[in-house]
């Protein structure tokens, strides 16, 4: 063992003096500098290769092509469908790709051995977590930017207002951000990248499709049985002549030759289910896709032309379906009334006793008036459903809770010194 004794400074080559700021305690909160740097590192590492640029260029060219095609086949009528499709595309791309990236970024880095050196530096757990989140989320933003020429075109034809578009875009980006955060959380929990990617997509699936399934199951649970009563002529008690006379009357529509006394009426009761969807409609509102549709402008199916809007499109369709569930079943379907009464139609009375021609005619008029009233009720119900005030807030709340919950978990898992390690992993 040699003991080389050299004066301090004698051997050291002249180098740029660096003076990192001193540190105290063990901070975790994200900082602007740290988040920006971490996002920059991640974006540079994921910078596409030449092949990647060619692929993205082609995608962009195809998009522009579709845009030009759509402009050529312009019908000059307002339609919101292209804009809605573009937004759904951005959300689809974002929800598929961004969580895939974030779901490999903590455990993947740890396997590659590039996480621990960053944790040693002045970057806090918050810097690393938020930087990685934003870098993955950028994919959705880039998809949005790539589609922007098409978005501008589609927007001009959509009858939407600019503020409405911005709100819906914000909603789409919020959904993608929340799903990305969930991916990051899985990445900090699972040891292997394959597992965390699968779990991230599973979570997305549960939110998008699972809520629909759950709603379907729950609406069975809130289905009431209602009893309907039908009255009609009892064929089994008719003689042959009477039956023939009745057949003839059905054909001619003239029942006056029939003697009510010959025909006995019978009642038939049956039950049917009516789902009280208003009790479980909130499940639908938790769905992120429904939330995005709920942020879109409400289109009144009767006055949209006067309002300068396009005809109800995809998002209006979703809104109407969800609002239908929220409002619940149409009153008249709620049962316990006689639905159909053949005897009353033919003989003008319930029991077929002492009826004449006048009674018959009067009943027909009354019936018509009743039908008109019913029709009006139904239309009002439909309109009320279509114009129900949108309720995006439950969905927004779900996204915000997922976002902050996931990030808190990730930050907690990234803090060093580690107390516990992910099972089956090493620090380095």
């Amino acid at each position, binding site marked *: *063992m040699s003991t080389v004794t*050299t004066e*301090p400074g004698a051997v050291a080559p002249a180098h740029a003096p660096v003076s*990192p700021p001193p540190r105290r*305690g063990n901070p975790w909160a994200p900082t602007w500098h740290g988040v920006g*740097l971490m996002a920059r*590192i991640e974006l540079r590492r994921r910078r596409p290769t030449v092949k990647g640029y060619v692929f993205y260029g082609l995608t962009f060219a195809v998009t522009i092509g579709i845009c030009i095609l759509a402009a050529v086949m312009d019908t000059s009528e307002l339609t919101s469908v292209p804009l809605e499709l573009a937004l759904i595309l951005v959300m689809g791309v974002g929800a598929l790709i961004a969580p895939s990236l974030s779901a490999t970024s903590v455990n993947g880095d740890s396997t590659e051995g590039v996480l621990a050196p960053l944790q040693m530096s002045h970057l806090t757990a918050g810097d690393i977590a938020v930087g990685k989140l934003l870098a993955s989320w950028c994919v959705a933003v880039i998809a949005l930017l790539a589609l922007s020429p098409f978005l501008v075109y589609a927007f001009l034809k959509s009858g939407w207002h600019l503020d409405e578009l911005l709100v819906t875009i914000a909603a789409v980006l919020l959904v993608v951000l929340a799903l990305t955060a969930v991916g990051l959380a899985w990445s900090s929990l699972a040891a292997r990248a394959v597992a965390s990617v699968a779990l991230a997509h599973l979570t997305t699936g549960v939110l998008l499709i699972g809520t629909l399934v759950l709603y379907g199951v729950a609406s069975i649970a809130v289905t009431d049985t209602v009893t309907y009563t039908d009255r009609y002529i009892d064929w089994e008690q008719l003689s042959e002549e009477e039956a023939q006379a009745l057949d003839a009357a059905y054909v001619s529509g003239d029942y006056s030759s029939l003697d009510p006394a010959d025909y006995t009426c019978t009642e038939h009761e049956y039950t049917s289910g009516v789902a009280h969807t208003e009790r479980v409609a909130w499940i639908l509102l938790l769905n992120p896709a429904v939330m995005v549709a709920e942020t879109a402008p409400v289109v009144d199916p009767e006055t949209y032309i006067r309002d300068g809007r396009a005809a109800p499109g995809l998002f209006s369709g979703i809104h109407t379906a969800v609002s239908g569930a929220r409002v619940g079943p149409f009153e008249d379907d709620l049962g316990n009334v006689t639905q159909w009464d053949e005897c009353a139609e033919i003989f003008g009375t319930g029991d077929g006793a002492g009826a004449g021609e006048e009674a018959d005619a009067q009943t027909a008029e009354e019936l018509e008036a009743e039908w008109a009233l019913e029709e009006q009720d139904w239309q009002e119900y439909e309109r009320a459903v279509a114009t129900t005030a949108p309720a995006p807030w439950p969905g927004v709340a779900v996204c915000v809770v997922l976002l902050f919950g996931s990030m808190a978990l990730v930050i907690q898992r990234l803090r060093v010194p580690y107390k516990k390690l992910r099972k089956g992993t090493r620090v380095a």
Partner: protein
Amino acid sequence: MTSPALAPAPVREAIVATGVARRFGSVHAVTDATLTVPAGSVTALIGPNGCGKTTLMLMLSGLLRPDSGTITVAGCDPRTDAAAVRASIGWMPDQLGSWDNLTCLQTLTLMGEAYRIPRATARTRGMELLARVHLTEFAERPARVLSRGQKQRLSLARALVHDPAVLLLDEPANGLDPRSRIELRELVREFAAEGRAVLVSSHVLAELDEMVDDAIFMSQGRTLGDDAAAMVADAKTRYRIGATNPAQLQALLTQYQVAFEPEAGGAIVRVESQDHAAQSLSWIVEHGVAIHQFGPVGSALEQTYMAMNEERR
């Protein structure tokens, strides 16, 4: 030339660890580690695979919390001031990890920025460090193309970006060619000369012999304190004598009651100093024994290591 900001009060004992223990589930990786590394010196951490060297270094670096025991690094306790501990340490992990798509210079610049060094300064510093580890020509090439040894050197440069007062090098000689090993040895000596405390773990014992001031042996999660130190001191005094006629040599030594270990080609004796060795040699030659070899037995660390005879895990 450490910057004044890094050395507020000159801390003599850069690393002090007492009774440190850590287990992973049922595996006791480190059961009882005690060590001291003074500033401006190089200390080796030696032990078989799986004896807990890496785990100990992780605890010293503030990445892993010990189950028990106390640690002080550069005057700070990782339990309360983990960030300060991490900031004072340059850590070279045994796992090679680099950002494949980034060039060597970008890697060092970004790492410098992560230590809150302004970008321009970090870049200059990065170039200097690349020169120091002989990677200048790779500055603009992606880390992906580096060979194992080159990655190892990049990793060493990365540990130095913030001019740390304490260096923890986990098996830095792994995968290095002979020339690079010698250069590493010189670099490590330079680091110590610059006033840094260096703790280096390695298997390449012959290399360590020449560069370390002190050695800590570890076995099955325990540091072997004074026993091992005594063995190293003893091993350093062992000289091998090769005689053309071994029997004649052994007879002479027996006659004058000199303690020796007989060997096929001669004997091994203990000498206290270089002067003593010189006197001994001329004394033997004067007695007419033909000597063809006379010198230290070999790496003192290696001898101690082999003598410990511990099982590998």
